[in-house]
């Protein structure tokens, strides 16, 4: 008897989904596949404000922003890793939070770094590093033996890479992979996140509708687009996301000092 067995889990609709009105486009994306993550990444990249950094930074997206768009975190992680293995996506440790990872498309990264390096003496070394890095390597940090033996860099070349911003010191003898000129990004990002969380906290009852928050005027502290920050705080679970009949409600969670 040839009978395809269905999973017991599929018989029971595991999560009750209340119909909610007037929510943003990217509410439920059920289709699987790396293509789906890629389109979400592209959407999030459009939210990144390029003009703010005078076009010197590639569009950066945080990994947990994807969690606010897709329900299954494990699947998101798996697909991001797949993209990294293929050499399409690069992941960076941002340094202010051990769980916050930044994602940049590899071509964007290469283009911006070379653009920033044009005319400087370190261009050659950086090109060599990028050529080694992008096709295969999916590491976040490098230690000395790896740089010397595998990549065949000399000490002075490593110093040049640190100077150009592609590597950041992690501790004696090892370096994080980093985005050049990202200091400003991190500073504005942390300030903006704090300001947006403050807006949610100061609202009446400590909660605000997502659509209303998106429409609010941003203070001078918030340099990025509101939607960028909102995806980030939802994905990092700094606010609780509650479905109501008037849309998604963001409620401030106690115990978050940020």
């Amino acid at each position: 008897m040839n009978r395809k067995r269905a999973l017991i889990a599929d018989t029971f609709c595991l999560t009750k989904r209340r119909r909610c009105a007037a929510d943003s486009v990217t509410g439920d994306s059920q289709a699987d596949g790396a293509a789906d993550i890629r389109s979400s990444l592209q959407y999030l990249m459009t939210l990144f404000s390029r003009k703010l950094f005078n076009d010197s930074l590639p569009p950066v997206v945080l990994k947990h922003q994807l969690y606010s768009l897709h329900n299954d975190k494990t699947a998101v992680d798996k697909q991001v890793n797949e993209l990294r293995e293929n050499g399409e996506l690069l992941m960076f440790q941002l340094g202010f939070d051990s769980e916050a990872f930044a994602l940049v498309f590899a071509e964007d990264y290469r283009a911006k770094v070379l653009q920033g390096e044009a005319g400087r003496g370190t261009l050659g070394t950086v090109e060599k590093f990028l050529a080694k890095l992008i096709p295969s390597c999916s590491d976040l940090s490098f230690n000395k033996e790896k740089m010397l033996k595998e990549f065949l860099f000399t000490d002075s070349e490593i110093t040049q890479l640190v100077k150009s911003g592609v590597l950041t010191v992690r501790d004696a003898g090892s370096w994080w992979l980093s985005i050049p000129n990202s200091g400003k990004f991190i500073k504005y990002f942390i300030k903006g996140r704090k300001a947006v969380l403050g807006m949610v906290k100061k609202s009446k009852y400590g909660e605000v509708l997502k659509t209303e928050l998106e429409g609010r005027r941003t203070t001078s502290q918030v340099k990025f687009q509101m939607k960028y920050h909102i995806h980030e705080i939802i994905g990092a679970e700094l606010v609780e996301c509650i479905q109501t009949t008037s849309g998604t409600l963001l409620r401030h969670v106690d115990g978050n000092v940020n």
Partner: protein
Amino acid sequence: MLSFLYARQSGLDDPVRLRRAESTRRVLSLELNHNRDVDRIHGNGINTLDTEVIDGRYMLSGGSDGVIVIYDLENNSKKPQYTCKAICTVGRSSRHVHKFSVETVQWYPHDTGMFVSSSFDKTMKVWDTETLKPAEEFQFDGNVYCHHMSPVARKQSLVAVGTKDPKVQLCDLKSGSRIHILQGHRGEILSVRWSPRYDHILATASTDSRVRIWDVRRASGSLFTLDQHNGDKSKASSEAVNTAHNGRVNGLCFTADGLHLLSTGTDDRMRLWNSGTGENTLVNYGKVVNESRKGLKFTVSRGCSPEFVFVPCGSSVAVYGLHSGELITMLRGHYNNVDCCEFHPDYQELYSGGKDCNILAWVPVLRQPGIEDDETNSKRGGTQAAINPAFEDAWSSDED
């Protein structure tokens, strides 16, 4: 559900499959039941709960006031409204009661004649259930956070004890000796668990952010340490290499088949590990709020098809799918922090205890009787469907 019944009836499916489907359905419909109550004896928070393995009838609870209570969970009254009565307690008036908070209690795995309790008064007592007097008492140097006896061991009867001391102590119940120690951790041991699959595998969790797996038959150190990055040294900062969590690890639970191990830590994460290889399965549960300074007691369901994890999260119990990592629901009902929860596999019920001194029973909601029942009633009784039972007699008939 009808398809499962039909498949079972006609032999298309294994009998186990119907049982699993029904168990899963029951777990998905867990709710606070106003008919089921547990006697409120504790004056202070409840730290630990344990149900006995043989019948699933008696439950032990240990509280912050040092009191230990035994409840009878079975409903022998014919009414749906039922309070689980406390059969006996080791109260403050008993001579042998623990001086400070009882952190862990556990029934002897093979019968209910004995149970073991450990407490912050630096002792672990082995009690005789009949007389409620300790048959054995083990003294330690520091607060005892947790202890565990192997549920499958037949040949050995070791109790693993985790205390403030970084050394894990193994006490032998048969001889009363405690010379076996396991060295390797560098911080207080917050949780110890024996594997339900092998009687020599022990997992320990400590404030030094590490989880170690030991084989107690070997004289050397631990078998391996669980690494959250699976050996990928580039992901972590250099101090955090080879750690299971980015904070204190305060909860451990094996799945029922012993193949997977769950650990929770104060970095607000829960991780699922393959217990044979120590590999992080990278299932992402999201933020599992965890602020507990001592151990957190959580539990995994048994007998359902996608297994569920029940984790106390603040003042509610969060239910996650084990392998998918998605949050199924939050069970809200406690007034204060929840400290422990216990799953009853035969009835698919969950008991949870917390700082509000209540033990709440979460019972699967039964399906309401359908419309067909009303119709058959009306066919039988005709116009006299709503007769008062006091006026019913056994000899008159309505069919004339």
